[in-house]
């Protein structure tokens, strides 16, 4: 049973179909693939763009630690995590998580775990650029993201 792990921090966008193919191609033991795609959302038609800053080096290392935890916890055949940085327009893809497993529960749970941990542990920060030309605030961290991550500690 080979396991593939792909982690990339990049400025350019990603191709979900291609990334899924990388995990499942040429093997027939994968029964379930879950993908999560996070998009740049424009809440009140006020957002022009998001600027994503990250901590180069630490971002890769921290995501690798989170991925290792997921691999220890679920029987996974493949994991892909791609996180972009730089300027994103509304509708743009920001983050991709893919998990492949024999069975659906492991794929679902691990994808959700990865996203909860990425939200609270991966060193990325979002700043809003408003449509009226002003540079808005840095997006605040949300309590419910911390709570979402904390529930994985309890079980």
């Amino acid at each position, binding site marked *: 049973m080979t396991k593939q792990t792909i982690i990339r921090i990049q400025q350019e966008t990603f191709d979900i179909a291609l990334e899924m193919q990388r995990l499942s191609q040429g093997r027939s033991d994968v029964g379930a693939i879950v993908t999560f795609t996070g998009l740049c959302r424009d809440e009140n038609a006020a957002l022009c763009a998001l600027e994503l800053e990250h901590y180069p080096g*630490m971002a890769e290392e921290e995501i690798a630690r989170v991925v290792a935890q997921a691999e220890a916890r679920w029987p996974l055949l493949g994991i892909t995590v791609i996180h972009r940085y730089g300027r994103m327009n509304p509708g743009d893809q920001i983050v991709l998580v893919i998990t492949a497993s024999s069975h659906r529960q492991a794929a679902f749970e691990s994808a959700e775990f990865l996203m909860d941990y990425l939200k*609270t542990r991966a*060193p990325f920060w979002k700043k809003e650029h408003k449509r009226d030309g002003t540079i808005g605030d840095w997006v605040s961290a949300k309590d419910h993201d911390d709570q979402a991550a904390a529930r994985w500690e309890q079980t």
Partner: protein
Amino acid sequence: MKAVYFAWVRERIGHAEEEINPPAHVSNVADLISWLSEKGEEYAYAFEKPQIIRVAIDRTHVKHDTLIKDAREIAFFPPMTGG
């Protein structure tokens, strides 16, 4: 050691990184934040709520009571908002 700053911590301080040489009595992260806060108005502003500042030593998240003695790179930033 090298101090690096991100997001609004970086913006408030006005630069992204610098060499710092804290005195010997500065032993843990909390001490270092207090000491940095006294370097000037911009630092005081960046660290005005020290409890919300996240810190990484050599690219690993640490708590404020972690000792800094062997740190080569220490990073200060707001709570993360990636994903």
